[in-house]
Protein backbone atom coordinates (compact mmCIF):
# COMPACT_ATOMS: atom_id res chain seq x y z
CA UNK A 1 0.00 0.00 0.00
CA UNK A 2 1.27 3.41 -0.94
CA UNK A 3 2.31 5.56 1.98
CA UNK A 4 0.84 8.99 2.09
CA UNK A 5 3.51 11.68 2.33
CA UNK A 6 3.70 13.55 5.61
CA UNK A 7 2.44 16.94 4.64
CA UNK A 8 2.87 18.60 8.01
CA UNK A 9 5.97 20.26 9.31
CA UNK A 10 6.88 19.26 12.86
CA UNK A 11 5.33 21.47 15.51
CA UNK A 12 7.71 24.44 15.75
CA UNK A 13 6.78 25.13 19.37
CA UNK A 14 7.60 21.65 20.62
CA UNK A 15 10.90 22.67 22.29
CA UNK A 16 9.71 25.76 24.13
CA UNK A 17 8.74 25.01 27.74
CA UNK A 18 4.99 24.76 28.32
CA UNK A 19 3.31 26.42 31.32
CA UNK A 20 2.53 23.96 34.11
CA UNK A 21 -1.24 24.20 33.65
CA UNK A 22 -0.92 23.26 30.00
CA UNK A 23 0.41 19.86 31.01
CA UNK A 24 -3.15 18.84 31.83
CA UNK A 25 -5.61 18.30 29.01
CA UNK A 26 -8.24 21.05 28.87
CA UNK A 27 -10.94 18.67 30.05
CA UNK A 28 -9.06 17.75 33.22
CA UNK A 29 -8.46 21.39 34.03
CA UNK A 30 -12.20 22.01 33.73
CA UNK A 31 -12.90 18.97 35.88
CA UNK A 32 -10.52 20.14 38.62
CA UNK A 33 -11.94 23.67 38.56
CA UNK A 34 -15.50 22.33 38.67
CA UNK A 35 -14.81 20.05 41.63
CA UNK A 36 -13.04 22.84 43.56
CA UNK A 37 -15.91 25.23 42.82
CA UNK A 38 -18.46 22.68 44.08
CA UNK A 39 -16.60 22.30 47.38
CA UNK A 40 -15.96 26.03 47.82
CA UNK A 41 -19.56 27.03 47.09
CA UNK A 42 -20.72 24.30 49.43
CA UNK A 43 -18.79 26.03 52.27
CA UNK A 44 -21.09 29.04 51.95
CA UNK A 45 -24.30 27.06 51.60
CA UNK A 46 -24.82 27.31 55.39
CA UNK A 47 -25.62 31.00 55.05
CA UNK A 48 -28.13 30.43 52.21
CA UNK A 49 -31.79 29.68 52.72
CA UNK A 50 -32.15 25.91 53.25
CA UNK A 51 -35.00 25.67 50.75
CA UNK A 52 -32.89 27.22 48.01
CA UNK A 53 -30.02 24.86 48.78
CA UNK A 54 -32.46 21.98 48.52
CA UNK A 55 -33.67 23.13 45.13
CA UNK A 56 -30.08 23.63 44.00
CA UNK A 57 -29.17 20.09 45.02
CA UNK A 58 -32.25 18.83 43.18
CA UNK A 59 -30.99 20.62 40.09
CA UNK A 60 -27.60 18.98 40.47
CA UNK A 61 -29.16 15.52 40.68
CA UNK A 62 -31.36 16.15 37.65
CA UNK A 63 -28.37 17.39 35.69
CA UNK A 64 -26.60 14.08 36.43
CA UNK A 65 -29.68 12.14 35.31
CA UNK A 66 -30.30 14.16 32.16
CA UNK A 67 -26.69 14.36 31.00
CA UNK A 68 -26.18 10.63 31.51
CA UNK A 69 -29.42 9.74 29.73
CA UNK A 70 -28.37 12.07 26.94
CA UNK A 71 -25.44 9.75 26.18
CA UNK A 72 -27.90 6.92 25.59
CA UNK A 73 -30.95 8.61 24.08
CA UNK A 74 -29.34 11.67 22.57
CA UNK A 75 -25.90 10.77 21.30
CA UNK A 76 -26.29 7.05 20.69
CA UNK A 77 -29.96 7.25 19.70
CA UNK A 78 -31.20 4.38 21.86
CA UNK A 79 -34.56 5.19 23.33
CA UNK A 80 -34.33 4.09 26.96
CA UNK A 81 -37.28 4.61 29.27
CA UNK A 82 -35.66 2.95 32.27
CA UNK A 83 -33.54 5.70 33.79
CA UNK A 84 -35.66 5.94 36.95
CA UNK A 85 -35.34 2.17 37.30
CA UNK A 86 -31.53 2.38 37.28
CA UNK A 87 -31.78 5.32 39.63
CA UNK A 88 -33.76 3.20 42.09
CA UNK A 89 -31.17 0.40 41.96
CA UNK A 90 -28.50 2.92 42.92
CA UNK A 91 -30.70 4.56 45.55
CA UNK A 92 -31.51 1.32 47.35
CA UNK A 93 -28.00 -0.11 47.07
CA UNK A 94 -26.32 3.05 48.33
CA UNK A 95 -28.85 3.47 51.13
CA UNK A 96 -28.44 -0.16 52.15
CA UNK A 97 -24.67 0.40 52.35
CA UNK A 98 -24.86 3.43 54.62
CA UNK A 99 -27.76 2.12 56.73
CA UNK A 100 -26.63 -1.48 57.28
CA UNK A 101 -22.89 -1.46 56.80
CA UNK A 102 -22.34 2.15 57.86
CA UNK A 103 -22.67 1.89 61.66
CA UNK A 104 -20.32 -1.08 61.80
CA UNK A 105 -17.70 0.58 59.62
CA UNK A 106 -18.00 3.94 61.37
CA UNK A 107 -17.74 2.23 64.76
CA UNK A 108 -14.25 1.14 63.77
CA UNK A 109 -13.21 4.56 62.47
CA UNK A 110 -15.37 7.53 63.42
CA UNK A 111 -14.83 11.07 62.14
CA UNK A 112 -15.97 13.16 59.17
CA UNK A 113 -13.46 11.63 56.78
CA UNK A 114 -14.86 8.18 57.51
CA UNK A 115 -18.39 9.44 56.81
CA UNK A 116 -17.30 10.90 53.50
CA UNK A 117 -15.45 7.77 52.49
CA UNK A 118 -18.43 5.63 53.45
CA UNK A 119 -20.74 7.78 51.35
CA UNK A 120 -18.37 7.80 48.40
CA UNK A 121 -18.11 4.01 48.58
CA UNK A 122 -21.89 3.67 48.86
CA UNK A 123 -22.43 5.87 45.79
CA UNK A 124 -19.87 3.88 43.82
CA UNK A 125 -21.54 0.61 44.79
CA UNK A 126 -24.94 2.08 43.87
CA UNK A 127 -23.59 3.24 40.51
CA UNK A 128 -21.85 -0.04 39.75
CA UNK A 129 -24.95 -2.01 40.75
CA UNK A 130 -27.04 0.10 38.39
CA UNK A 131 -24.45 -0.32 35.61
CA UNK A 132 -24.60 -4.07 36.16
CA UNK A 133 -28.39 -3.96 35.92
CA UNK A 134 -27.91 -1.89 32.77
CA UNK A 135 -25.73 -4.59 31.24
CA UNK A 136 -28.24 -7.29 32.21
CA UNK A 137 -31.02 -5.39 30.49
CA UNK A 138 -28.95 -3.99 27.67
CA UNK A 139 -26.90 -6.90 26.36
CA UNK A 140 -29.87 -8.98 25.22
CA UNK A 141 -31.96 -6.04 24.00
CA UNK A 142 -29.46 -3.64 22.40
CA UNK A 143 -29.06 -5.97 19.42
CA UNK A 144 -32.71 -5.51 18.63
CA UNK A 145 -33.77 -2.71 16.38
CA UNK A 146 -36.18 0.11 16.88
CA UNK A 147 -38.66 0.31 19.70
CA UNK A 148 -37.79 -2.91 21.51
CA UNK A 149 -35.35 -1.16 23.80
CA UNK A 150 -38.03 1.32 24.87
CA UNK A 151 -40.35 -1.59 25.71
CA UNK A 152 -37.71 -3.62 27.53
CA UNK A 153 -36.48 -0.68 29.62
CA UNK A 154 -40.05 0.31 30.40
CA UNK A 155 -40.70 -3.23 31.59
CA UNK A 156 -37.49 -3.24 33.60
CA UNK A 157 -38.48 -0.03 35.40
CA UNK A 158 -41.79 -1.54 36.43
CA UNK A 159 -40.31 -4.89 37.47
CA UNK A 160 -37.62 -3.32 39.62
CA UNK A 161 -40.25 -1.16 41.32
CA UNK A 162 -42.38 -4.20 42.15
CA UNK A 163 -39.29 -5.99 43.48
CA UNK A 164 -38.39 -3.13 45.83
CA UNK A 165 -42.02 -2.92 46.96
CA UNK A 166 -41.77 -6.50 48.13
CA UNK A 167 -38.36 -6.61 49.79
CA UNK A 168 -39.20 -6.15 53.46
CA UNK A 169 -35.63 -5.50 54.61
CA UNK A 170 -35.61 -2.43 52.35
CA UNK A 171 -38.88 -1.16 53.76
CA UNK A 172 -41.15 -2.71 51.15
CA UNK A 173 -44.07 -0.62 49.98
CA UNK A 174 -43.77 1.65 53.03
CA UNK A 175 -40.42 2.93 51.87
CA UNK A 176 -36.88 2.73 53.17
CA UNK A 177 -36.42 5.16 56.07
CA UNK A 178 -33.60 6.36 58.25
CA UNK A 179 -31.11 7.04 55.47
CA UNK A 180 -28.37 9.36 56.79
CA UNK A 181 -28.31 12.94 55.48
CA UNK A 182 -25.06 12.86 53.55
CA UNK A 183 -25.96 14.63 50.31
CA UNK A 184 -24.95 18.26 50.26
CA UNK A 185 -24.20 20.81 47.58
CA UNK A 186 -20.62 19.64 47.13
CA UNK A 187 -21.59 15.98 46.61
CA UNK A 188 -24.37 16.75 44.13
CA UNK A 189 -22.35 19.23 42.09
CA UNK A 190 -19.12 17.27 42.35
CA UNK A 191 -20.86 14.30 40.74
CA UNK A 192 -22.63 16.63 38.33
CA UNK A 193 -19.28 17.94 37.14
CA UNK A 194 -17.93 14.39 36.92
CA UNK A 195 -20.91 13.28 34.83
CA UNK A 196 -20.54 16.17 32.40
CA UNK A 197 -16.80 15.51 32.22
CA UNK A 198 -17.25 11.80 31.52
CA UNK A 199 -19.92 12.19 28.87
CA UNK A 200 -18.11 15.07 27.15
CA UNK A 201 -14.78 13.25 27.14
CA UNK A 202 -16.36 10.09 25.79
CA UNK A 203 -18.18 11.88 23.00
CA UNK A 204 -15.52 14.44 22.12
CA UNK A 205 -12.96 12.06 20.78
CA UNK A 206 -12.57 10.11 17.60
CA UNK A 207 -13.61 7.03 19.54
CA UNK A 208 -16.71 8.80 20.80
CA UNK A 209 -17.82 10.01 17.40
CA UNK A 210 -18.77 6.35 17.02
CA UNK A 211 -21.74 6.92 19.37
CA UNK A 212 -23.08 9.57 17.01
CA UNK A 213 -22.25 7.49 13.94
CA UNK A 214 -24.19 4.57 15.47
CA UNK A 215 -27.13 6.88 15.90
CA UNK A 216 -26.97 8.48 12.47
CA UNK A 217 -26.59 5.37 10.38
CA UNK A 218 -26.02 2.04 12.01
CA UNK A 219 -25.28 0.06 8.83
CA UNK A 220 -22.77 2.66 7.66
CA UNK A 221 -21.16 2.68 11.10
CA UNK A 222 -20.77 -1.08 10.97
CA UNK A 223 -19.43 -0.90 7.43
CA UNK A 224 -16.48 1.18 8.64
CA UNK A 225 -15.75 -1.43 11.28
CA UNK A 226 -17.50 -0.02 14.35
CA UNK A 227 -19.02 -2.60 16.66
CA UNK A 228 -22.25 -0.70 17.17
CA UNK A 229 -23.65 -3.13 19.73
CA UNK A 230 -20.58 -2.51 21.81
CA UNK A 231 -20.97 1.26 21.53
CA UNK A 232 -24.57 0.98 22.62
CA UNK A 233 -23.61 -1.24 25.53
CA UNK A 234 -20.92 1.18 26.70
CA UNK A 235 -23.37 4.09 26.48
CA UNK A 236 -26.02 2.13 28.31
CA UNK A 237 -23.72 1.03 31.12
CA UNK A 238 -22.23 4.49 31.63
CA UNK A 239 -25.71 6.02 31.56
CA UNK A 240 -26.99 3.51 34.12
CA UNK A 241 -23.93 4.07 36.34
CA UNK A 242 -24.60 7.77 36.70
CA UNK A 243 -28.32 7.16 37.12
CA UNK A 244 -27.39 4.88 40.03
CA UNK A 245 -25.14 7.53 41.55
CA UNK A 246 -27.92 10.11 41.18
CA UNK A 247 -30.24 7.65 42.93
CA UNK A 248 -27.77 7.33 45.82
CA UNK A 249 -27.52 11.11 46.11
CA UNK A 250 -31.30 11.37 46.00
CA UNK A 251 -31.71 8.79 48.77
CA UNK A 252 -29.28 10.61 51.05
CA UNK A 253 -31.02 13.89 50.33
CA UNK A 254 -34.61 12.77 50.96
CA UNK A 255 -33.57 10.40 53.80
CA UNK A 256 -36.46 8.17 52.91
CA UNK A 257 -37.08 6.47 49.59
CA UNK A 258 -40.16 4.85 48.23
CA UNK A 259 -40.38 2.63 45.12
CA UNK A 260 -43.13 4.84 43.75
CA UNK A 261 -40.70 7.74 43.57
CA UNK A 262 -38.89 5.92 40.75
CA UNK A 263 -41.82 5.12 38.54
CA UNK A 264 -42.48 5.65 34.88
CA UNK A 265 -43.28 9.36 35.27
CA UNK A 266 -39.84 9.96 36.74
CA UNK A 267 -38.24 8.31 33.69
CA UNK A 268 -40.39 10.42 31.41
CA UNK A 269 -39.32 13.60 33.23
CA UNK A 270 -35.70 12.81 32.44
CA UNK A 271 -36.48 11.91 28.84
CA UNK A 272 -38.27 15.25 28.50
CA UNK A 273 -35.15 17.07 29.69
CA UNK A 274 -33.10 15.31 27.03
CA UNK A 275 -35.56 16.05 24.24
CA UNK A 276 -36.03 19.64 25.34
CA UNK A 277 -32.28 20.15 25.56
CA UNK A 278 -31.89 18.87 22.02
CA UNK A 279 -30.88 15.22 21.86
CA UNK A 280 -27.12 15.04 22.00
CA UNK A 281 -26.50 18.65 22.98
CA UNK A 282 -24.93 18.55 26.45
CA UNK A 283 -25.26 22.25 27.20
CA UNK A 284 -28.89 22.31 26.09
CA UNK A 285 -29.68 19.28 28.20
CA UNK A 286 -28.09 20.88 31.28
CA UNK A 287 -30.16 24.00 30.68
CA UNK A 288 -33.33 21.94 30.26
CA UNK A 289 -32.60 20.04 33.50
CA UNK A 290 -32.20 23.34 35.36
CA UNK A 291 -35.34 24.78 33.79
CA UNK A 292 -37.52 21.76 34.44
CA UNK A 293 -36.37 21.53 38.08
CA UNK A 294 -37.03 25.17 38.83
CA UNK A 295 -40.31 25.34 36.95
CA UNK A 296 -42.34 23.09 39.28
CA UNK A 297 -40.93 25.03 42.25
CA UNK A 298 -42.14 28.30 40.77
CA UNK A 299 -45.43 26.64 39.97
CA UNK A 300 -45.83 25.17 43.42
CA UNK A 301 -49.29 26.76 43.94
CA UNK A 302 -50.61 24.86 40.93
CA UNK A 303 -48.57 21.71 41.38
CA UNK A 304 -51.39 19.48 40.15
CA UNK A 305 -51.03 21.02 36.72
CA UNK A 306 -47.35 20.32 36.50
CA UNK A 307 -47.70 17.47 34.05
CA UNK A 308 -50.15 19.48 31.99
CA UNK A 309 -47.64 22.29 31.84
CA UNK A 310 -44.89 19.88 30.93
CA UNK A 311 -46.93 18.67 27.99
CA UNK A 312 -47.85 22.19 26.95
CA UNK A 313 -44.28 23.38 27.17
CA UNK A 314 -43.07 20.37 25.24
CA UNK A 315 -45.60 20.89 22.48
CA UNK A 316 -44.76 24.58 22.21
CA UNK A 317 -41.04 23.85 22.14
CA UNK A 318 -41.34 21.02 19.67
CA UNK A 319 -43.14 23.39 17.34
CA UNK A 320 -40.84 26.36 17.78
CA UNK A 321 -37.53 24.60 18.36
CA UNK A 322 -37.74 21.06 17.00
CA UNK A 323 -33.97 20.75 17.15
CA UNK A 324 -33.82 21.55 20.89
CA UNK A 325 -33.27 24.64 23.00
CA UNK A 326 -29.69 25.36 22.09
CA UNK A 327 -29.20 23.61 18.82
CA UNK A 328 -28.18 26.23 16.32
CA UNK A 329 -25.26 24.43 14.80
CA UNK A 330 -26.63 22.33 12.00
CA UNK A 331 -29.15 24.35 10.10
CA UNK A 332 -30.68 23.31 6.83
CA UNK A 333 -28.40 25.48 4.72
CA UNK A 334 -26.87 23.65 1.80
CA UNK A 335 -23.69 24.80 0.20
Amino acid sequence: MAEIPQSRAPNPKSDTPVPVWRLLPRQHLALALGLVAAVVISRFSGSIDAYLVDVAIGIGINVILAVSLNLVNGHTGQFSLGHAGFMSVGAYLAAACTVFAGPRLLGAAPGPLAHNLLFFGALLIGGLGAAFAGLLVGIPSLRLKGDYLALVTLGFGEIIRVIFQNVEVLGGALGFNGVPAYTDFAWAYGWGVLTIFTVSCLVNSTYGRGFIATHDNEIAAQSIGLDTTRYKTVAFAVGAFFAGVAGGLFAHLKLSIDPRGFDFTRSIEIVVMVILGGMGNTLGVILAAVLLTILPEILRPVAEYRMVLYSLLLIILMITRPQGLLNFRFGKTRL
Partner: protein
Amino acid sequence: MPPLLQLHQATIRFGGLTAVNTVDFAIAEGSLCGLIGPNGAGKTTVFNLITGVYAPTHGRITFAGHDLAGKKVHEVAALGIGRTFQNIRLFDRLSVFDNVRVACNRHRATGPLQTLVRLRAFRDDEAAVSRRAEELLEMFNLLRFRDTPATCLPYGEQRRLEIVRALATRPRLLLLDEPAAGMNPSEKADLVRLIRHIHREFGLTILLVEHSMRVVMGVCQTIAVLDHGMKIAEGTPAEIRQNRKVIDAYLGEEHAPLKAE
Protein backbone atom coordinates in the same frame (compact mmCIF):
# COMPACT_ATOMS: atom_id res chain seq x y z
CA MET B 1 -2.55 -17.33 -6.11
CA PRO B 2 -6.11 -17.88 -4.83
CA PRO B 3 -8.58 -15.08 -5.55
CA LEU B 4 -9.01 -12.37 -2.90
CA LEU B 5 -12.78 -12.71 -2.89
CA GLN B 6 -14.72 -15.75 -3.92
CA LEU B 7 -18.46 -16.47 -4.05
CA HIS B 8 -19.40 -20.16 -4.26
CA GLN B 9 -22.98 -20.74 -5.34
CA ALA B 10 -24.04 -17.69 -3.33
CA THR B 11 -27.83 -17.62 -3.02
CA ILE B 12 -30.28 -15.56 -1.02
CA ARG B 13 -34.04 -15.76 -0.97
CA PHE B 14 -36.40 -13.14 0.40
CA GLY B 15 -39.64 -15.04 0.81
CA GLY B 16 -40.47 -16.30 -2.66
CA LEU B 17 -37.96 -14.08 -4.42
CA THR B 18 -34.50 -15.41 -5.16
CA ALA B 19 -32.59 -12.13 -5.29
CA VAL B 20 -29.20 -13.78 -5.85
CA ASN B 21 -29.18 -17.22 -7.39
CA THR B 22 -26.22 -19.65 -7.27
CA VAL B 23 -23.67 -17.04 -8.22
CA ASP B 24 -20.06 -18.12 -8.65
CA PHE B 25 -17.69 -15.26 -8.85
CA ALA B 26 -14.04 -14.60 -8.05
CA ILE B 27 -11.93 -11.47 -7.89
CA ALA B 28 -8.16 -11.57 -8.07
CA GLU B 29 -6.15 -9.34 -5.78
CA GLY B 30 -5.41 -6.02 -7.42
CA SER B 31 -8.04 -6.25 -10.13
CA LEU B 32 -10.72 -3.72 -10.98
CA CYS B 33 -13.99 -5.53 -11.70
CA GLY B 34 -17.44 -4.41 -12.67
CA LEU B 35 -20.79 -5.85 -11.74
CA ILE B 36 -23.63 -4.76 -13.97
CA GLY B 37 -27.20 -5.71 -14.72
CA PRO B 38 -30.70 -4.27 -14.98
CA ASN B 39 -32.57 -2.74 -12.03
CA GLY B 40 -33.43 -5.35 -9.44
CA ALA B 41 -30.87 -7.81 -10.81
CA GLY B 42 -29.39 -8.30 -7.35
CA LYS B 43 -26.20 -6.23 -7.53
CA THR B 44 -26.70 -4.37 -4.27
CA THR B 45 -27.80 -7.61 -2.67
CA VAL B 46 -24.46 -9.18 -3.69
CA PHE B 47 -22.71 -6.31 -1.84
CA ASN B 48 -24.90 -6.91 1.17
CA LEU B 49 -24.03 -10.60 1.11
CA ILE B 50 -20.31 -9.91 0.87
CA THR B 51 -20.36 -7.36 3.69
CA GLY B 52 -22.44 -9.52 6.02
CA VAL B 53 -25.59 -7.38 6.02
CA TYR B 54 -27.41 -10.52 4.84
CA ALA B 55 -26.39 -14.12 5.37
CA PRO B 56 -26.61 -16.28 2.25
CA THR B 57 -29.39 -18.85 2.22
CA HIS B 58 -26.99 -21.20 0.41
CA GLY B 59 -23.42 -21.05 -0.68
CA ARG B 60 -20.25 -19.66 0.75
CA ILE B 61 -18.23 -16.47 0.51
CA THR B 62 -14.54 -16.36 1.29
CA PHE B 63 -12.28 -13.35 1.55
CA ALA B 64 -8.49 -13.57 1.84
CA GLY B 65 -8.72 -17.09 3.18
CA HIS B 66 -11.49 -16.32 5.69
CA ASP B 67 -14.92 -17.87 5.44
CA LEU B 68 -17.31 -14.97 5.93
CA ALA B 69 -20.16 -17.18 7.18
CA GLY B 70 -21.56 -15.86 10.44
CA LYS B 71 -19.33 -12.79 10.45
CA LYS B 72 -20.96 -9.56 11.54
CA VAL B 73 -20.79 -6.46 9.36
CA HIS B 74 -18.10 -4.78 11.46
CA GLU B 75 -16.05 -7.98 11.51
CA VAL B 76 -16.13 -8.18 7.73
CA ALA B 77 -15.04 -4.53 7.61
CA ALA B 78 -12.18 -5.36 9.96
CA LEU B 79 -10.98 -8.05 7.55
CA GLY B 80 -10.48 -5.29 4.99
CA ILE B 81 -13.65 -4.81 2.97
CA GLY B 82 -14.82 -1.21 2.59
CA ARG B 83 -17.93 -0.08 0.77
CA THR B 84 -20.07 2.82 -0.33
CA PHE B 85 -23.83 2.82 -0.55
CA GLN B 86 -26.19 3.29 -3.46
CA ASN B 87 -28.38 5.57 -1.34
CA ILE B 88 -25.78 7.75 0.38
CA ARG B 89 -25.30 6.90 4.04
CA LEU B 90 -23.16 9.58 5.61
CA PHE B 91 -23.28 10.51 9.28
CA ASP B 92 -25.58 13.52 9.21
CA ARG B 93 -24.65 14.93 12.57
CA LEU B 94 -20.92 14.76 11.97
CA SER B 95 -18.76 17.17 10.02
CA VAL B 96 -16.96 16.10 6.86
CA PHE B 97 -13.78 15.79 8.93
CA ASP B 98 -15.41 13.62 11.59
CA ASN B 99 -17.05 11.38 9.00
CA VAL B 100 -13.54 10.45 7.92
CA ARG B 101 -11.97 10.47 11.38
CA VAL B 102 -14.51 8.08 12.82
CA ALA B 103 -13.66 5.64 10.04
CA CYS B 104 -10.03 5.63 11.23
CA ASN B 105 -11.13 4.16 14.57
CA ARG B 106 -10.40 0.65 13.40
CA HIS B 107 -6.67 1.35 13.60
CA ARG B 108 -6.49 3.07 16.96
CA ALA B 109 -4.98 1.45 20.00
CA THR B 110 -6.93 3.30 22.71
CA GLY B 111 -10.54 2.77 23.78
CA PRO B 112 -13.27 4.40 25.87
CA LEU B 113 -11.40 4.53 29.17
CA GLN B 114 -8.50 6.41 27.63
CA THR B 115 -10.86 9.13 26.44
CA LEU B 116 -11.28 9.98 30.13
CA VAL B 117 -7.66 9.72 31.21
CA ARG B 118 -6.29 11.29 27.99
CA LEU B 119 -2.74 10.12 28.47
CA ARG B 120 -0.01 10.53 25.90
CA ALA B 121 -1.03 7.40 23.96
CA PHE B 122 -4.55 8.73 23.54
CA ARG B 123 -3.43 12.13 22.34
CA ASP B 124 -0.98 10.57 19.90
CA ASP B 125 -3.77 8.36 18.61
CA GLU B 126 -6.08 11.32 18.11
CA ALA B 127 -3.37 13.35 16.42
CA ALA B 128 -2.50 10.49 14.07
CA VAL B 129 -6.14 9.98 13.15
CA SER B 130 -6.69 13.68 12.52
CA ARG B 131 -3.58 13.92 10.39
CA ARG B 132 -4.59 10.93 8.30
CA ALA B 133 -8.14 12.24 7.86
CA GLU B 134 -6.81 15.61 6.73
CA GLU B 135 -4.43 13.98 4.29
CA LEU B 136 -7.20 11.94 2.76
CA LEU B 137 -9.51 14.95 2.50
CA GLU B 138 -6.72 16.98 0.97
CA MET B 139 -6.03 14.26 -1.56
CA PHE B 140 -9.65 14.28 -2.69
CA ASN B 141 -9.94 18.04 -2.60
CA LEU B 142 -12.49 17.98 0.19
CA LEU B 143 -10.41 19.70 2.83
CA ARG B 144 -12.11 23.01 2.09
CA PHE B 145 -15.32 21.45 3.46
CA ARG B 146 -13.57 20.19 6.60
CA ASP B 147 -16.01 21.55 9.19
CA THR B 148 -19.16 21.49 7.08
CA PRO B 149 -21.88 19.08 8.18
CA ALA B 150 -21.68 16.15 5.78
CA THR B 151 -25.25 16.48 4.58
CA CYS B 152 -24.71 20.10 3.54
CA LEU B 153 -22.24 19.03 0.85
CA PRO B 154 -23.30 19.06 -2.79
CA TYR B 155 -24.49 15.67 -3.97
CA GLY B 156 -21.43 14.69 -5.98
CA GLU B 157 -19.12 15.62 -3.10
CA GLN B 158 -21.19 13.46 -0.76
CA ARG B 159 -20.52 10.49 -3.02
CA ARG B 160 -16.82 11.24 -2.99
CA LEU B 161 -16.85 11.66 0.78
CA GLU B 162 -18.33 8.18 1.07
CA ILE B 163 -15.38 6.85 -0.93
CA VAL B 164 -12.93 8.73 1.29
CA ARG B 165 -14.62 7.39 4.40
CA ALA B 166 -14.35 3.84 3.07
CA LEU B 167 -10.67 4.40 2.24
CA ALA B 168 -10.01 5.63 5.78
CA THR B 169 -10.62 2.09 7.03
CA ARG B 170 -7.67 0.99 4.83
CA PRO B 171 -9.54 -1.72 2.96
CA ARG B 172 -8.00 -4.32 0.68
CA LEU B 173 -11.24 -4.62 -1.26
CA LEU B 174 -13.43 -1.63 -2.02
CA LEU B 175 -17.04 -2.10 -3.10
CA LEU B 176 -18.53 0.89 -4.91
CA ASP B 177 -22.31 0.89 -5.41
CA GLU B 178 -23.28 3.23 -8.25
CA PRO B 179 -20.78 5.99 -7.46
CA ALA B 180 -21.73 7.87 -10.64
CA ALA B 181 -25.46 7.98 -9.93
CA GLY B 182 -26.76 11.50 -10.38
CA MET B 183 -23.51 12.86 -11.79
CA ASN B 184 -23.17 14.92 -14.96
CA PRO B 185 -20.76 13.89 -17.73
CA SER B 186 -17.86 16.00 -16.48
CA GLU B 187 -18.29 14.69 -12.94
CA LYS B 188 -18.36 11.18 -14.38
CA ALA B 189 -15.08 11.81 -16.18
CA ASP B 190 -13.57 13.01 -12.88
CA LEU B 191 -14.91 9.91 -11.17
CA VAL B 192 -13.28 7.62 -13.72
CA ARG B 193 -9.96 9.33 -13.06
CA LEU B 194 -10.52 9.09 -9.32
CA ILE B 195 -11.30 5.37 -9.41
CA ARG B 196 -8.21 4.68 -11.50
CA HIS B 197 -6.16 6.82 -9.14
CA ILE B 198 -7.24 5.09 -5.94
CA HIS B 199 -6.88 1.69 -7.57
CA ARG B 200 -3.27 2.50 -8.37
CA GLU B 201 -2.23 4.60 -5.38
CA PHE B 202 -3.81 2.49 -2.67
CA GLY B 203 -3.05 -0.85 -4.29
CA LEU B 204 -6.71 -1.74 -3.94
CA THR B 205 -8.94 -4.36 -5.40
CA ILE B 206 -12.18 -2.73 -6.54
CA LEU B 207 -15.59 -4.11 -7.36
CA LEU B 208 -17.78 -1.54 -9.06
CA VAL B 209 -21.55 -1.60 -9.53
CA GLU B 210 -22.61 1.03 -12.04
CA HIS B 211 -25.27 1.73 -14.65
CA SER B 212 -23.18 4.24 -16.56
CA MET B 213 -21.56 2.16 -19.31
CA ARG B 214 -19.13 4.95 -19.92
CA VAL B 215 -17.76 4.56 -16.40
CA VAL B 216 -17.88 0.77 -16.30
CA MET B 217 -16.35 0.17 -19.72
CA GLY B 218 -13.85 2.91 -19.05
CA VAL B 219 -12.31 1.55 -15.86
CA CYS B 220 -13.05 -2.15 -15.47
CA GLN B 221 -10.68 -4.91 -16.49
CA THR B 222 -13.35 -7.60 -16.18
CA ILE B 223 -17.11 -7.38 -15.89
CA ALA B 224 -19.72 -9.78 -14.55
CA VAL B 225 -23.36 -9.43 -15.53
CA LEU B 226 -26.31 -10.30 -13.34
CA ASP B 227 -29.88 -10.75 -14.45
CA HIS B 228 -32.70 -11.89 -12.17
CA GLY B 229 -30.13 -12.89 -9.59
CA MET B 230 -28.18 -15.13 -11.99
CA LYS B 231 -24.77 -14.49 -13.47
CA ILE B 232 -25.33 -14.52 -17.21
CA ALA B 233 -21.91 -13.47 -18.45
CA GLU B 234 -18.39 -12.60 -17.40
CA GLY B 235 -15.50 -11.24 -19.41
CA THR B 236 -13.58 -8.22 -20.61
CA PRO B 237 -15.51 -5.07 -21.55
CA ALA B 238 -15.14 -5.91 -25.23
CA GLU B 239 -16.50 -9.41 -24.72
CA ILE B 240 -19.40 -8.18 -22.63
CA ARG B 241 -20.37 -5.61 -25.25
CA GLN B 242 -20.69 -8.33 -27.85
CA ASN B 243 -22.40 -10.90 -25.67
CA ARG B 244 -25.84 -11.67 -27.06
CA LYS B 245 -27.39 -12.48 -23.67
CA VAL B 246 -26.11 -9.25 -22.16
CA ILE B 247 -27.37 -7.18 -25.07
CA ASP B 248 -30.81 -8.77 -24.81
CA ALA B 249 -31.09 -8.57 -21.04
CA TYR B 250 -29.49 -5.25 -20.33
CA LEU B 251 -27.44 -3.25 -22.79
CA GLY B 252 -29.89 -3.12 -25.67
CA GLU B 253 -28.81 -2.65 -29.27
CA GLU B 254 -27.38 0.85 -28.90
CA HIS B 255 -24.48 -0.47 -26.83
CA ALA B 256 -23.84 -3.37 -29.14
CA PRO B 257 -20.37 -3.72 -30.68
CA LEU B 258 -18.19 -0.68 -30.30
CA LYS B 259 -20.85 1.92 -29.89
CA ALA B 260 -19.88 3.16 -26.45
CA GLU B 261 -21.25 6.56 -25.43
